[in-house]
């Protein structure tokens, strides 16, 4: 579904990603784990078009998407839930979801998408008239994911969904992401919470200093001594 081959990207003179190749198949959940500053967020941004790759190719369902602007890529069916949630704080919850369905194709199925999002996250239905900025951190993350689902994506990019959440909320959030998965969405998730995320996904990549260091089935990766010591904390 999504394939990156030898992608290099960065900001100005700084290169954050070197020669990264990865793939996500339809229906899969894939994680990219790695320490702070390893290039995980850059990877997400290059896929969703917020930054252009310097080299390498990106294809989504056979179409080349490398270097296309973000507002175009979402139309192909890739929704990016950015790091730090980035909801529109002064808009109501309902208006945030409305913006998720900004594209004409998504607008046409607005009512149906909204019903699905409300079924997944009932809290968003209860708080629809509230200012998004007044929601709790967990609810804001649900809103960010719900807003992404409104665009009717095929692939969802989740960048550090558990960041800044209380431990009990982190567990709930991973349950919710599991439910999103069961709905049939393909997921690419970047997380620092390695132990939780490896329980969620099928496969994972380990990214270090901008390069893919390891790749494998989530369960197998979690068993690697190296990964356990460094990230799982066992």
């Amino acid at each position, binding site marked *: 579904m999504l394939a990156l081959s030898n992608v290099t990207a960065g900001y100005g003179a700084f290169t954050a990603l070197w020669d990264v190749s990865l793939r996500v198949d339809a229906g899969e959940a894939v994680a990219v784990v790695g320490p702070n500053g390893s290039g995980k967020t850059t990877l997400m941004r290059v896929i969703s078009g917020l930054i252009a790759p310097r080299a390498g190719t990106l294809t989504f369902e056979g179409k080349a998407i490398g270097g296309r602007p973000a*507002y175009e890529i979402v139309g192909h069916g890739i929704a990016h839930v950015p790091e730090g949630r980035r909801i529109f704080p002064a808009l109501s919850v309902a208006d945030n979801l409305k913006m998720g369905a900004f594209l004409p194709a998504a607008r046409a199925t607005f009512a149906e998408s909204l019903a699905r999002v409300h079924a997944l996250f009932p809290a968003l239905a209860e708080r629809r008239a509230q200012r998004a900025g007044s929601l709790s951190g967990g609810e804001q993350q649900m809103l960010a994911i719900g807003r992404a689902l409104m665009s009717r994506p095929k692939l969802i990019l989740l960048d550090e969904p558990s960041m800044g959440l209380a431990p009990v909320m982190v567990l709930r959030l991973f349950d919710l992401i599991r439910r999103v998965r069961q709905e049939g969405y393909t997921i690419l998730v970047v997380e620092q919470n390695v132990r939780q995320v490896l329980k969620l996904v099928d496969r994972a990549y380990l990214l270090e200093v901008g390069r893919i260091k390891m790749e494998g089935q989530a369960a197998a990766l979690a068993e690697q001594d190296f990964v356990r010591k460094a990230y799982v904390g066992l």
Partner: protein
Amino acid sequence: MIDPVFLAEAAINGLLLGGVLALLALGLNLIFGVIDIVWIAYVDLVMLCMYAVYFVVQVYGWPIWVGGLVSVALGALLGIAVHLLIISPILTSAPVNQLLATGGLLFFLQSFATFLWTTDHRSVRLALPRLEILDMPISVARLIAFALAIVAMLGLYLFLTRTYIGTAIRAVSQDREAMALMGANPQRVYVVTSAVGGAMAGLAAALLIIQYAVHPFFGAAFGPITFMICVLGGLGNMVGAFVASFIMSEVIAVSGVIWSTEMGYVIAFVVFIVMIFVRPGGILARRG
């Protein structure tokens, strides 16, 4: 002691002036809130539109409402042109360069208007009556201007809250990049915003020319007060700008009657400077 009737009359005039000032401040603030650039030459676009109304109505003899429509359309086109020709190329450069560019446009427009139309004051003469309410003469032109300004602002409010593109404009002002992830081309949102802001300048021009004469330096007369209102209300804060317009117009009108017109502006600036220290984020800024 000043006759309370004079004070009441000043207060009413202040209120009526506040409506048109609010229209100007909202247009400027909308553009700033979304694109993050202050159009120093905003009121000079108003000046150009006032000339347009003058020519359409006074020189070519069309009815005033035609002049108004021409002015709104011209304002929208000027807004788009300013964005595409001046703002767009410098969108990512340093703020000081952006100020210099839009400031340069101001001097260009003033000189251009002087070159074309000289410094003569020109006005549109409409046969509008003056009303007497409780011994107070009230200008019908001002009443009409006030009413239309309020209707236009209501329309803007509905546009920004009830339509997809209006909500997207507010969303872009909060997070440009996140809105790109929703599928909105920022450049298109900017063009729409500039057109709406320009159209508001055009409407304000039509409402001003029935009260004031136009000359090439009209922008210098109304520009500073418009910027003060925007800053006082909190740059980008639409409700704040609306409230601040009436505060400033009342200060000018009432102290103008108590002392003199010049003193009215002096006091307005003093109020402004004090408020900058007391509430630097604007009168309605959220604390914390």
